[in-house]
Structure formats: structure tokens, C-alpha cells
């Protein structure tokens, strides 16, 4: 149930990413990455499937790398 609530909370962030100025959208993207990681963590524990925990770990690292790449390019070039 909590995973569903967290998934629902992604909707306003997606709207913000689409409508708001670009830097506000980047902040929303950062928070969305965190939420997706935690949803994967909750689903892994809820379904008792060990491989899903790996997805959460990978998602945590990759959402950081993605956010960093966006921040770097949005500084000057985009």
C-alpha cells in the first residue's frame, strides 16, 4: 500500500518536470529518482524477492549519475 502511495506521489513530480522551468524540473527529477528507488525497495521486501533489492541499489546509483549529468549539461549548454 505504501508503495502505491509513493507511486501516486510521482504524478505531481512528472507534471512539474513537464510544466515548470527547467531547473525546477531537474529538482523534481532528483526527488523522483529517490522515490522510484524506495518503491523498488518496498516492492522487493513486500514480494520477498531478493533480486529486486539489486534493482533498488542500481537505481540509487544511476539516478544520482543521471541527475549529475543533467545538472552538468544544464549549467551552460542546454
Amino acid at each position, binding site marked *: 500500500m*505504501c508503495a502505491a*502511495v*509513493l507511486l501516486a*506521489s510521482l504524478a*505531481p*513530480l512528472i507534471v*512539474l518536470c513537464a510544466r515548470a*522551468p527547467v*531547473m*525546477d524540473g*531537474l*529538482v*523534481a527529477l*532528483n*526527488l523522483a529518482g*529517490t*522515490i522510484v*528507488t*524506495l518503491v523498488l*525497495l*518496498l516492492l*522487493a*521486501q513486500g514480494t520477498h524477492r*531478493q533480486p529486486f*533489492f*539489486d534493482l*533498488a*541499489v542500481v537505481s*540509487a*546509483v544511476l539516478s*544520482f549519475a543521471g*541527475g*549529475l549529468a543533467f*545538472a*552538468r549539461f*544544464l*549549467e*551552460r549548454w542546454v
Partner: protein
Amino acid sequence: MTEVVVWILVVLGTVVQVLSVLGLLLARDPYDRLHFTGPASTIAPVAFALAVIVDEGPVTQAAVKSVLTALALVVLNGVLVHATARAARIREHGSWGLLPEERAGVD
């Protein structure tokens, strides 16, 4: 008793996340919005990792991986917030350094 503790931790993490999203939506500019990624990347992952530890035990594969996830979020979020704020400032003012009026306040 264990189930109650797990539920309290999971609900705590979920409430923190939802409040962070609400705060982010209500804030005015990117600098204000960045503040609300803090609780979402520190309190909630730690609460969820503790919930997994309480549920599965401290030396299980699930517990170790959830602690690793929480650790990654807690440590890397600070770097990401700094990079985002830096990008916003450079985009706004053209450089990362102090503006002349800000330098006057420092000197």
C-alpha cells in the same frame, strides 16, 4: 510487536516522502525546492532500511542491500543537491563566483 515496528517505520518513511513532494510543489524557486529533497533522501531511506532489518534480521542479504541503498541515497544526495544548486546559479548569473554586490557584503 515486530510487525508493528515495521509498519511504523514504513508509514513514517512514506509520510516523509509525501510531505517532501508537497513541499517541493509549494516552494517558489529551485533553491527552495532543493531543501525538500533532504528529508526524502535521508529520513525515508533510513526508515525503510531499518524496517527491512527489523523484519528480516540484521545479517541477511535483504538487510545488507537495503542498508547499501539507504547509504547510497544519503551520501550521494548531498552531492546532487550541490551540483543542482551550482547549475541553477551558473544558469542564472553566468558564473559560480560571488557577484559584485555580494562581494561588497563580504568585504
